[in-house]
C-alpha cells in the first residue's frame, strides 16, 4: 500500500501527459476531419475539387497506411533535416492530429455519403442556406451514423498516446515502465493498466450517453 502511495504521484503525472495529448488531438482532429471529409466527398467534376480530392486521398492513404509511431519519428527527427523543427510537445500534437484527422476524415466521408440525397434537396427547396443545411439537417444525421466508429477511434487514441515515449515524453506508460525497472516489480505496470481501464471506462460511458441522445430517431 505504501509502495503504491510512493509511485502514484509519478503515475498521475504521466496520466496528465496522456490526457493532454488525448484531449488536444481530439479537439483539433475531429473538426479538421469533418472539413477534410467535405473535400473527399465525391460531387462536382470541377478540376480544382478533383485535384483537392486526389491530394486528400493520398494524404489519408499515407497516414492510415503507415504506423503512427513511424509518423511521430519522422515529424520529430526527420522534418528538422529539411529545416522544420518542432519542440517535443508540438511534434506530438502535429503527428497525432495528422494521423487521427485522416481516420476521422474517412469516417465522416462515409457518414456524409450515407445520408440520402433527398435530404439535401428537401433542405434546398425549403430555402435553407448551405450552412443551415449542414448544421441542422446533415451533420446531426452524420453524427448518429459515425458515433460508433468515432468511439472506437477515441479509445484507440487513449492507448496510442503511449507512443509519445519514442521522442522522450513522459506519459503514463513510461512512468510505469521507469518505476517497474527501478524497483524490479510489476506493480507499477498493473497500476498503469488499471488507470488505462478507468480512462477507457469513462470514455465508454460518455459514448453511451451521447449515443442515447441520438437514439430517438432513425
Amino acid at each position, binding site marked *: 500500500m505504501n509502495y503504491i502511495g510512493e509511485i502514484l504521484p509519478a503515475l498521475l503525472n504521466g496520466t496528465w501527459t496522456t490526457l493532454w495529448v488525448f484531449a488536444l488531438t481530439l479537439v483539433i482532429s475531429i473538426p479538421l476531419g469533418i472539413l477534410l471529409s467535405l473535400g473527399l466527398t465525391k460531387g462536382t467534376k470541377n478540376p480544382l475539387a478533383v485535384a483537392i480530392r486526389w491530394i486528400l486521398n493520398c494524404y489519408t492513404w499515407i497516414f492510415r497506411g503507415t504506423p503512427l509511431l513511424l509518423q511521430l519519428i519522422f515529424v520529430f527527427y526527420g522534418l528538422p533535416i529539411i529545416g522544420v523543427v518542432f519542440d517535443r510537445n508540438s511534434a506530438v500534437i502535429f503527428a497525432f492530429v495528422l494521423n487521427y484527422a485522416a481516420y476521422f476524415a474517412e469516417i465522416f466521408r462515409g457518414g456524409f455519403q450515407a445520408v440520402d440525397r*433527398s435530404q439535401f434537396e428537401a433542405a434546398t427547396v425549403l430555402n435553407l442556406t448551405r450552412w443551415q443545411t449542414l448544421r441542422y439537417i446533415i451533420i446531426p444525421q452524420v453524427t448518429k451514423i459515425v458515433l460508433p466508429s468515432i468511439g472506437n477511434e477515441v479509445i484507440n487514441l487513449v492507448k496510442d498516446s503511449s507512443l509519445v515515449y519514442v521522442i522522450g515524453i513522459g506519459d503514463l506508460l513510461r512512468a510505469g515502465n521507469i518505476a517497474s525497472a527501478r524497483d524490479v516489480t510489476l506493480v507499477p505496470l498493473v497500476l498503469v493498466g488499471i488507470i488505462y481501464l478507468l480512462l477507457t471506462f469513462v470514455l465508454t460511458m460518455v459514448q453511451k450517453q451521447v449515443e442515447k441522445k441520438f437514439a430517438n430517431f432513425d
Partner: protein
Amino acid sequence: MLELTGISKQFNGRTILKNLNLQVTDGKTLAIVGPSGVGKTTLLRIIAGLEDADQGEMTWNGAKTTSEELRKQGILGVVFQNFALFPQYTVRKNITLAPTLSGTSQADADKKADELLNQLSLTEQENAYPSTLSGGQKQRVAIARALALNPDVLLYDEPTSALDPALRDNVADMLNQFKQAGMTQVVVTHDMDFAAKVADTVFKMPIGLEA
C-alpha cells in the same frame, strides 16, 4: 401564372425532354402524366430548380425568372415522392424549422404549425419522429412542411405511389381541398384515375397539353 417555354433536357447525350411548353394557371391543378421513364420527375425537378434545363425559359406572371429566384421568393413548395422528412426532428419541428431559419419568430412559426397540424389531422403526432409515422401521415407532414412557408405553387411527385391504394381517394380529396382554398398545384403521376380526380388540366408526356 407560371410558364415554361422550350424546355429541353439531355442526360448523357440522351434527349429526355424536347422543346416542352407548359402553363400552370393560378388556382388550378395541373397533372403531368405519362409512362415510366418519360421524364415527368425530371420536368418537375426542373421546375423546382433541382435540375438545370439545357434550354428553355421560365416566366412568373409574365416576368422572366429562374427556379432559383422563385425558390428565394418562397413561391414554390415541393412534396417529394419519398417525402424526405428530417428524421432527427419531431413532426412539429419538421414544420417549423425552415420558417424559423428564414427569420420567422418561433411563436409565429408555432402558430402556423398549430393551424397546419390541425388542418391535416396531425395534432396527435406533433411530437412523434418521422420513422414512427404511417405513409399517409408522413405525406401530410411533408405537405405541412411545404405549406409552412406559404408557397404560391405546390409541386408533388407521385403523391399516391408510396401509399396504400385505399388512401388514393383521401389524397385526391386533400388536393381538391387545397385547390378550393386557392392553391396552385402541379402533380406528377402515372395514375390516370387519380389525375382525372384532381386535375383541371392534364399534361400528357411526351405529347403535350390536353384540356
